[in-house]
């Protein structure tokens, strides 16, 4: 049986994980080259990677009853994959004979210098005619043999949640996946111009039934329908591997998670059963009427409140609907639509079904893009008011929703020459 040999990338563990998924071999050997000299950031990356292999990134102090099981993914052990790490100072220290010649080497992860050095060492050890396969998993998920040029499909690739964890160290949840089939049915939907300055779809009852297989009736005055519409239609674009309605990104610690949820103004404390007075003793005294004395320093109040709230949630068993409700508010970043292209680029979309356009809408999309995929993302506002603009405005693409039927305005997005139109490089605007 073939074994996989790959190198760990301490600057971003995503390629290492991607190679493991795409090759799907049961025995994996990972070289940690120069581990003794890893910086603390690189050590953290290794810890993130090890948690990824376990299938759950739940922090130790995060209460089990507050965790959503769907946040987890299948561990490598459950997939039948075992990992052995080899910590070495340099490639020349690696004794390739230990694992035998029956190997596939995937070079997606690791520097070019180390890759060439490893290839040479394996050739010297086993001879160039050995059965070793030298391959590189491409961002598209395909695997290319660097000797023969043969290409084959990957076994599996990373989910968006896994990618967000590996790259940014944050938890992520997606909403409903965009369906190519539904997208094909709705992308040429008829338009209504009954409302000035706002393009509406016609026959909304029929559209509503197609947009969600659950019994959801969309209010077409507001923008929620557009999020689902966009996820489905974007799924029809030839370069899109997957698209989703909504991406929520959560902080990676229990305390921050509680603070993020409880700081949202719309969250109803009553619904989750959190009492206004809190559950722990007020440490800053009371007046003669038994009312709490106010604390001058806001920081002290925030600290007490956060401790009180984490105590409450640590000791309270919420109902499943209360738990889902809380998670709905605990995000620190969110976008309405997210998609991954075959070339590894991300699309982040904000949907606005409005009679006006506000440039500030782009801020959270751009912020999330810079967190998750700073070098390889396309941000767009999908809206009903302005015509689609060829040039970016403020780092964002402005698309009118009926134009989604054309893949990125007739652009084959995996062609980097065309993608450049969407990068902030157009100097003639």
């Amino acid at each position, binding site marked *: 049986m073939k074994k996989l040999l790959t190198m760990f990338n301490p600057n971003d563990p995503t390629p290492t994980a991607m190679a493991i998924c795409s090759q799907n071999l049961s025995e994996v050997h990972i070289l940690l080259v120069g581990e003794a000299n890893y910086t603390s950031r690189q050590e953290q990356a290794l810890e993130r990677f090890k948690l990824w292999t376990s299938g759950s990134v739940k922090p130790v102090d995060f209460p089990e009853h507050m965790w959503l099981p769907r946040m987890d993914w299948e561990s490598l052990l459950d997939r039948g994959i075992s990992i052995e790490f080899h910590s070495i100072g340099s490639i020349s220290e690696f004794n390739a004979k230990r694992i035998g010649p029956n190997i596939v080497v995937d070079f997606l992860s690791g520097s070019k210098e180390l890759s060439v050095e490893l290839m040479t060492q394996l050739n010297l050890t086993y001879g160039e005619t050995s059965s070793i396969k030298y391959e590189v998993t491409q961002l598209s998920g395909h695997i290319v043999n660097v000797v023969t040029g043969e290409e084959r499909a990957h076994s599996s690739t990373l989910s968006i949640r896994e990618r967000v964890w590996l790259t940014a160290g944050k938890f992520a949840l997606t909403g409903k996946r965009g369906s190519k089939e539904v997208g094909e049915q709705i992308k040429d939907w008829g338009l209504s111009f009954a409302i000035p300055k706002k393009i509406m779809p016609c026959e909304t009852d029929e559209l509503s039934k197609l947009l969600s297989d659950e019994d959801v009736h969309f209010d077409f005055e507001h923008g929620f329908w557009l999020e689902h519409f966009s996820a489905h239609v974007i799924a029809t674009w030839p370069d899109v591997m997957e698209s989703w309605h909504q991406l929520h990104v959560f902080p990676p610690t229990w305390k921050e998670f509680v603070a993020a949820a409880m700081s949202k103004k719309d969250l109803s404390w009553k619904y989750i059963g959190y009492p206004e007075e809190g559950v722990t003793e007020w440490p800053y005294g009371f007046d003669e009427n038994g009312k709490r004395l106010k604390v001058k320093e806001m920081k002290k109040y925030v600290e007490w409140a956060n401790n009180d709230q984490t105590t409450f949630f640590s000791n309270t068993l919420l109902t499943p609907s209360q738990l889902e409700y809380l998670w709905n508010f605990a995000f620190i970043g969110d976008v309405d639509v997210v998609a991954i292209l075959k070339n590894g680029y991300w699309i982040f979309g904000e949907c606005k079904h409005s009679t006006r356009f506000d440039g500030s809408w782009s*801020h959270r999309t751009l912020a999330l893009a810079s967190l998750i995929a700073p070098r390889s993302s396309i941000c767009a506002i999908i809206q009903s008011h302005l015509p689609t603009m060829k040039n970016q405005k403020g780092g964002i693409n402005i698309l009118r929703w009926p134009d989604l039927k054309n893949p990125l305005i007739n652009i084959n997005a995996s062609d980097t020459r065309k993608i450049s139109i969407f*990068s*902030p490089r157009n100097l003639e605007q």
Partner: protein
Amino acid sequence: MAVEFDQVYGMVSDSPIPLLALIEGCSAAKSFTLWFTPEKRSKVRYLKRFFESKHPKTKFKFVQIPSMNEPAKQVQALKKEIAGQSEGEDLRTAVFISAGTTTMALSMWHHSKARIWISLRKGLELSVFSPQDGQETCLVLGGGVLTLQQILFSQGWIYNGRELQHENGKLSETIDVSYSESTGELSFVKNVQHLNDSSQERAVSFMCALTDEFGFNGANYEIYGSLSKRALNLLNDAIIHTKGEGEEE
């Protein structure tokens, strides 16, 4: 020490300095075969003009290979081209691995049957490495081997001390451009103090275009002075933003 090769294989990438350093460091080589993808086609005529005028006795061959989006076809093209070039000859060949993707570098290395690879380290130091015997030779390019104007000219840019302009005449902006001969670092610094919001956005956009042109890691990019929120959103990771003196944090 001059390193003599019959031929050297390399890739054309966004950043000009690795390739320029290779040609200068291995100027005793008889020929260079430089592969490029359609995405880099626009750079070739400037590079060709520059190399051929600076090293008229050396042979430079630019060969197009398939797009970045077709890595399997790239491997097949490299395999075929290299086999055709070195057929029946026992050439002293080296492969430059500091430019291009891993797929390209490994494919070049394998098919060329080269015994030497060359890589670029910081401070314009070329490492010439023979993995079979572990021997490494370091070539440090001295001052004056590359100048700022040469680097820019090799990419079709001209700097008059104030404005940076592309030869096609479209792209121009006031900017400080410098090159450190000791570290081999190219730097672009744009001062946006006293610019209005729309000029700031244009300046940031220009700097982002430079990162595309000279590569994310190919130069230092800095914007000096406060930026509006909209302009800040345009910044990419490669650009360092520093506030001007007396400006609030």
